[in-house]
């Protein structure tokens, strides 16, 4: 018997064939997830967006907050092919006295070349080390008024492309961290409530009911309004994250509690108890790993909501405040009919927001379908 058992694994190894029984559950989930093309596509889109976000200071040609009245509402710059490769024309600014709008006409006499990996304004890369290197820039003297606005400029003449990139640092991360925070709180509270039960459970459930009985938006607004105005942007960022998490955790805590109640009464938990397992062992070995897939799904599907919420708060002037920039702040500039009709490029952040939220929803759907790999 012993020799036969000793030989068999060698045979299995020799075959080099993957044994379906040895695949952990999470790998089965990855396998199922990769079958959903839409979700994989969404994952790729989000991967690109987050990569760009991380590199945004390097990619952005201009600082997000430098005003330039010579280029207020400048349209997206036309790129032409010159002797030195791609280039742009300088702009001449005129005021249309009839419609009271700036009219920009390109000065076609000189083509200012676009250069790659140029030195520009100083920034701190990932907050780690200072750098002046930028992906691209225009080789033009300062007095020429030749600036590259890939997505046009806003009413203060700031480059929308640079602002969108800078805004993504807030909009793409704040919702993410907010959800992360509420997932952590919700999981811990829900597990405690479901596992220990009794008076603690009762207390937690009534607290959740109390929090949930407030209407959402006024509560968010009240909380956001309570965040002091004169604090540094990082502190404000953190506080808005907390505001998003404060209400979000309640729903998750309830769901986790329900899951934990089910897993606690499962026989494998009873077997661990019969062996004398500690509460910690049972929670970490039997309850959390099984509840994790549900938590991940809820978290995934909550991210687009949190991104939307941050945008909404910033739009209402309660979230991130100027001069800092987020997509919500960019949307404030695009809220007039004039913007929609005359300066349609101001709506680009809307499109990005829609793409992000849609991608997260598709990703969440894929993850939700994947977490039950045996179904």
């Amino acid at each position, binding site marked *: *018997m012993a020799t036969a058992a000793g030989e068999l694994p060698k045979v299995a190894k020799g075959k080099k064939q993957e044994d379906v029984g*040895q695949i952990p559950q999470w790998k089965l989930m990855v396998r199922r997830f990769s079958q959903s093309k839409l979700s994989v596509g969404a994952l790729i889109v989000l991967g690109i967006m987050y990569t760009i976000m991380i590199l945004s200071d390097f990619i952005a040609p201009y600082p997000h907050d430098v005003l330039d009245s010579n280029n207020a509402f400048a349209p997206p710059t036309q790129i032409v092919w010159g002797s030195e490769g791609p280039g742009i024309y300088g702009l001449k600014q005129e005021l249309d006295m009839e419609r009271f709008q700036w009219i920009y006409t390109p000065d076609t006499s000189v083509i200012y070349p676009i250069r790659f990996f140029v030195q520009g304004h100083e920034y701190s890369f990932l907050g780690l080390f200072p750098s002046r290197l930028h992906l691209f820039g225009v080789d033009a003297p300062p007095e020429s008024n030749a600036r590259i606005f890939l997505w046009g400029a806003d009413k203060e003449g700031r480059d929308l492309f640079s602002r969108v990139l800078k805004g993504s640092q807030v909009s793409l991360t704040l919702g993410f961290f907010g959800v992360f925070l509420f997932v952590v709180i919700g999981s811990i509270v829900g597990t405690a409530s479901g596992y220990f039960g009794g008076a603690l459970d009762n207390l937690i459930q009534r607290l959740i009911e109390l929090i949930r009985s407030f209407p959402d938006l006024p509560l968010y607004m009240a909380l956001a309004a309570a965040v002091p105005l004169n604090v540094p942007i990082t502190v404000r960022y953190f506080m808005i994250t907390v505001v998003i998490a404060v209400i979000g955790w309640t729903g998750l805590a309830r769901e986790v509690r329900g899951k934990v109640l089910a897993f606690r009464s499962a*026989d494998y938990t009873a*077997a661990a108890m019969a*062996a004398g397992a500690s509460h910690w062992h049972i929670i970490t070995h039997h309850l959390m790993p099984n509840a994790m897939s549900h938590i991940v799904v809820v978290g995934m599907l909550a991210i687009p909501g949190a991104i939307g919420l941050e945008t909404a708060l910033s739009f209402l002037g309660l979230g991130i405040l100027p001069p800092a920039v987020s997509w919500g702040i960019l949307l404030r500039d695009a809220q007039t009919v004039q913007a929609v009709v005359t300066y349609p490029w101001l709506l680009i952040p809307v499109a990005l927001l829609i793409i992000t939220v849609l991608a997260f929803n598709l990703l969440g759907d894929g993850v939700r379908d994947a977490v039950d790999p045996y179904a």
Partner: protein
Amino acid sequence: MDTAKKNGKSDEILLEVRGLKKHFPIQSGFLRRVTGYVKAVDGIDFYIKKGETLGLVGESGCGKSTTGRTILRLLDPTAGEVIFDDPNIGKVDLAKLNRSQLKRVRPNMQIIFQDPFSSLNPRLTVGQIVGEPLEIQKVASGQALRDRVAELLQEVGIRPENMTRYPHAFSGGQRQRIGIARALALNPKLIVCDEPVSALDVSIQAQVLNLLEDLQEKYDLTYLFVAHDLSVVEHISDRVAVMYVGYIVEMASTEDLYYHPKHPYTEALLAAIPKPDPRKRTRPIKLPGDVPSPANPPSGCYFHPRCRYAEDICKVERPPLRDIGGEHWVACHFAEKLQLQGVSRLNEIPLIELPKRQAPVPATTTATT
């Protein structure tokens, strides 16, 4: 009865349960006021001797599983004593131990579950599942743990190289074997088998029952075998206890109980066993009414509303479980008077006592010649 089992038995008592009760509160209303109790286990007494198998039978919902789980302190008892003779510590009352004290006794009493799907955590490999009790009790780790797990798996008929597989790769019968290996891990004395074969199909049932019997012989195990299948219980048990709505109505040796039942409920249960010979078919005894709710049991003897022998005293006084001789315990006022029908013996065909063969002829030899 096979002789090997009889030899392994001793008269020492391993587990004695006295007046064990488990009541679940019924809560209602906003403040969760307790408005009543489900008396799942309502004062039961029994004992198990070292090396024997006590079958615990009864209808669904009569408290069999709750009894098993309360003994192991997976549920906290409402009242009563559970006296366990721990080989290292001595006799202890499990009902009074706290968590850390229990942890020292737990290696000697383990459990096998009914549902082979819910009893194995899908996130852990078979090796992790079987090794978990060893890890919890800090008995072994590293290579020693893996060796022990391999040994255990081999013991229950699972190839040790399956250690790295996940439970979903196994069939119901194999999963049940893995559950048995886990229960064996700590070298227990007592194993509560909570309907270990009712979720399996018949051919697999036989394999698992034989495995349990082999293990019992090899490791001198004592089983509390909870089941509702009377033929399974007859096959595996030395003694059988019959439960009805939270208490034991009859407890006797398997033969005694099956052929000479003394409680009307046992008689009705036995009459419901399907007969293999259609010409021998007897009419099952029809019990009027339903099983009473354990939240609101009848007065006196809980069985009296359905009992065809019931008299006035049955409505008033609950009969105690008493020994009517030869370790035949019955909870019935008229145990001595009633003439009840047990199962009919299949001994019309005379059985021949064969002389013992000197050496068994291997099947392979005959095939080659």
